[in-house]
């Protein structure tokens, strides 16, 4: 598979490493080239300096036509913009955005984005460890609950208050 990862933080770097070691074709980008120091010396993928919010730079870095797209930068909004651009403009099917604000993560799930919310995952892990019951939907990547649409239609948007729709409920 071809994977494209935006953001070479700890998460991005270790994911890149694992995917590449498993034999996938990996491109990882970051605006700060020092971030690439997090990758092992023999990293077999490509590491490029590029800004994930700039469509031209994404194309130049070869994001078009990849199988997996991960938006894992430090900025929730940057990830949201990049993921939507990847899905809508570059036509990539499997797209995940890291959105650490739970409210925004939930809202964008309803708008058709699969999200990864570190806050919810950590809070749930700690709560479970403390003996509280496990919270549904807080594990791993939360799939989209709504679906992408060209949002040109008027106000009749059935999923706009869909925060209570259970995961995978489409």
């Amino acid at each position, binding site marked *: 598979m071809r994977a494209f990862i935006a953001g070479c933080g700890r998460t991005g770097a270790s994911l890149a490493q694992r995917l590449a070691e498993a034999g996938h074709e990996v491109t990882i980008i970051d605006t700060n080239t020092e971030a690439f120091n997090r990758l092992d010396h023999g990293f077999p993928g490509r590491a490029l300096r590029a800004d994930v*919010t*700039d*469509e*031209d730079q994404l194309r130049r870095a070869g994001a078009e036509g990849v199988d997996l797209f991960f938006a894992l930068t430090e*900025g*929730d*909004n*940057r990830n*949201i*913009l*990049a993921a*939507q*651009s990847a899905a*809508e*403009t570059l036509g990539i099917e499997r797209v995940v955005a890291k959105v650490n*604000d739970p*409210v*925004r993560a939930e*809202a*964008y799930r*309803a*708008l058709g984005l699969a999200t990864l919310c570190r806050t919810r995952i950590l809070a749930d892990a700690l709560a479970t460890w403390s003996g509280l019951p496990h919270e549904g939907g807080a594990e791993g990547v939360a799939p989209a609950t709504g679906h992408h649409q*060209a*949002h*040109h239609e008027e*106000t009749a*948007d059935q*999923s*706009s208050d869909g925060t209570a729709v259970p995961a995978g409920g489409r």
Partner: protein
Amino acid sequence: MYVIIVGGGKVGYYLTKELLAAGHELVLLEKDGRRARQIADEVGSIVLQRDGCEGKHLEEAGAKRAAIVAAVTGDDEDNLVVCQMAKHHFDVPRTIARVNNPRNESLFRHLGVDEIISPTRMALAAIEQDIPVHELLHLAQLPGGRLELIEAQIAEDSPAVGRRAADLSLPDACSLLAIIRSGNAQPIRADTTLQVGDTVLAISRTESGDQLHDALIGAADGGDPD
């Protein structure tokens, strides 16, 4: 009409003042405390020190009854999120986003932002009107007054790209002198093929400027800015 403005930079600040002067009810969200206080000192208590990207803060600001949400920060991603949250979470009828990277305009429209303002594009358009980008540059008039030394930049859309100098339909009494390619000057021979990025120096009659323009730059009517 109740308006929420997100971002208290220059655009947000002047927009706030204009709308207040026009008698609108509004609130400005600015996440930087110092900037928020600065503006509040001037326009009063309608400034909230809040991050407009947070759903909670938009709600506090009264997004549910807002007629318009205008996101005018310097960051495209923030403006997009503000507008999408406003539209899909709070059913705000009209959202306006400032787009700083012109490439984001179509994506924002596609994702449901109602109105796009692109200061970058507006500034570019205004400046391009004053600076001819694809024009012949008249470098010097030669003694006698009938001939000129002219410079032309070969752009992607030039009809001369990939053609040999001998095959160009140049006006009478026109002579191509040299090209400057990658910083080096070289003479133009009959079999020299022109490339994108070349600078061509030519001598031509003053009155055949249009014809030379057509040959080296392209027909002047193709004014599609995109």
